[in-house]
């Protein structure tokens, strides 16, 4: 069974393939010159590839391939807000793609900029807005103003379909916070208790902000679905459902490293194990490795302690940025971890982080790296 890494970049898509995780070949580009924020293989049929694409001049869309990326067909109805939307919203780019529950083949979810939630029930051919979220009477408050967005527009990301319940959805927004729905997206409530918001003053009554936080990435453990991890603009957190309180386990990171970053990857089989890539969130927020010395940090005890992993990385003067969608794990034993950098390098480990090596370099700015095992 081949291992594949789907690499979405600022200027197209590449696919890395290996049968042994040692020798990798690189295929591509597809969509050369086009911004592609997310590419993902459907883990249910292991055949359908969806790609979120926004050509620089043209509008946003989603492409679908059934032949491993050799040919692509555009969605007949890409994600878009209703014509006549009272807030005059128009999708600028599709940022995030999530396959639906294992029991719902053909269902996909998409998150966009500006922040919107969309659903397909036909393998990504047609998309419809989820009105329960997009048109919620409080939604305009949740998504914030122009000052609450990432530089190229706010992002709705980290859409999670609960492995235990296809109706239970989670999502995060930068900025805006994390929200959950018990009914497939008809109703929503914030899920941000315990999360810091250092960019806002404490409330006079000491209470927490309900929303307005800046989660960078949220994931559900594939082996323990009650466990969630969140890398936030203000720290790294864990939540064990049914609790609704995030615990800042990033406080256990070395103080000189801190707990700021974009991505988080759960281990494929160990509920207490996860990886993060800390970046500098001090001063002018360079979002680069602390001191120019890249390192992944791994916990094997649910965040109580962290181990530095930097074997194979440059020891100095390496000012990478790893974006929120650009880290992923495979399902191998031992597990492999892969990440892409904004300077176009793809790095990987097949021994859970004991040593890393650069698989490919000279690619464009990498937005996302996802893993799949095509049939």
């Amino acid at each position, binding site marked *: 069974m081949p291992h594949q890494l789907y690499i979405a970049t600022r200027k197209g898509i590449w696919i890395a393939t290996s049968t042994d995780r040692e020798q990798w070949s690189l295929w591509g580009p597809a969509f050369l010159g086009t911004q592609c924020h997310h590419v993902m293989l459907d883990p249910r049929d292991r055949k359908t590839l969806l790609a979120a694409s926004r050509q620089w*001049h*043209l509008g946003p869309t989603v492409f679908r391939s059934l032949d491993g990326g050799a040919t692509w067909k555009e969605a007949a109805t890409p994600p*878009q807000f*209703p014509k006549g*939307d009272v807030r005059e919203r*128009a999708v600028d780019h599709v940022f995030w793609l999530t396959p639906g529950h294992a029991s719902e083949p053909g269902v996909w979810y998409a998150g966009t900029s500006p922040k919107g939630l969309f659903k397909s029930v036909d393998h990504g051919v047609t998309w419809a807005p989820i009105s329960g979220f997009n048109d919620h009477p409080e939604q305009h408050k949740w998504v914030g103003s122009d000052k609450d967005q990432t530089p190229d527009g706010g992002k709705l990301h980290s859409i999670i379909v609960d492995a235990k319940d296809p109706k239970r959805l989670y999502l995060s927004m930068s900025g805006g916070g994390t929200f959950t729905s018990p009914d497939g997206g008809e109703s929503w409530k914030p899920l941000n208790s315990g999360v810091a918001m250092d960019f806002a003053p404490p409330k006079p009554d000491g209470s927490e902000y309900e929303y307005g936080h800046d989660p960078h990435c949220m994931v559900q453990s594939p082996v323990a679905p009650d466990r969630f991890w969140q890398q936030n603009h203000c720290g790294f957190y864990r939540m064990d459902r049914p609790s609704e309180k995030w615990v800042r386990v990033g406080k256990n990171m070395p103080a000189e490293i801190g707990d700021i970053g974009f991505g988080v990857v759960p281990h494929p089989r160990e509920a207490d194990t996860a990886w993060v890539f800390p970046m500098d969130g001090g001063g002018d927020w360079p979002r680069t490795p602390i001191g120019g010395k890249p390192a992944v940090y791994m916990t094997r005890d649910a965040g109580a302690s962290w181990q530095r992993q930097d074997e194979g990385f440059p020891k100095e003067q390496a000012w990478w940025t790893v974006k929120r969608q650009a880290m992923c794990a495979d399902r191998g034993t031992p597990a492999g971890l892969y990440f892409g950098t904004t300077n176009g390098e793809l790095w990987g480990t097949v021994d859970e982080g004991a040593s890393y090596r650069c698989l490919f370099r000279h690619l464009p700015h990498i937005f996302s790296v996802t893993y799949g095992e095509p049939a």
Partner: protein
Amino acid sequence: MKVVIPSQLRGYTGGAKEVEAAGATLAEALADLDRQFPGFRFRVIDEQDRVRQHILIFVGGERCEDVRDKIPEGAEVFIAGALSGG
């Protein structure tokens, strides 16, 4: 009418640099183009009927920002991609 197609949109027109379209307004011409080349319109016009930020449309040599604008008899529609930088 003749419609001049920029390189970014020729994937929809089978590589054609110029195509023919019918319609008394820009909206009608774009609807006809979308019938001929499915998906074409949404890459140029957003869901609120606005010309996308980095697309320019000229009708008879005049910049056109409103899909309701009429297309004079014999006028050419010229679509351009307009974005600088890397």
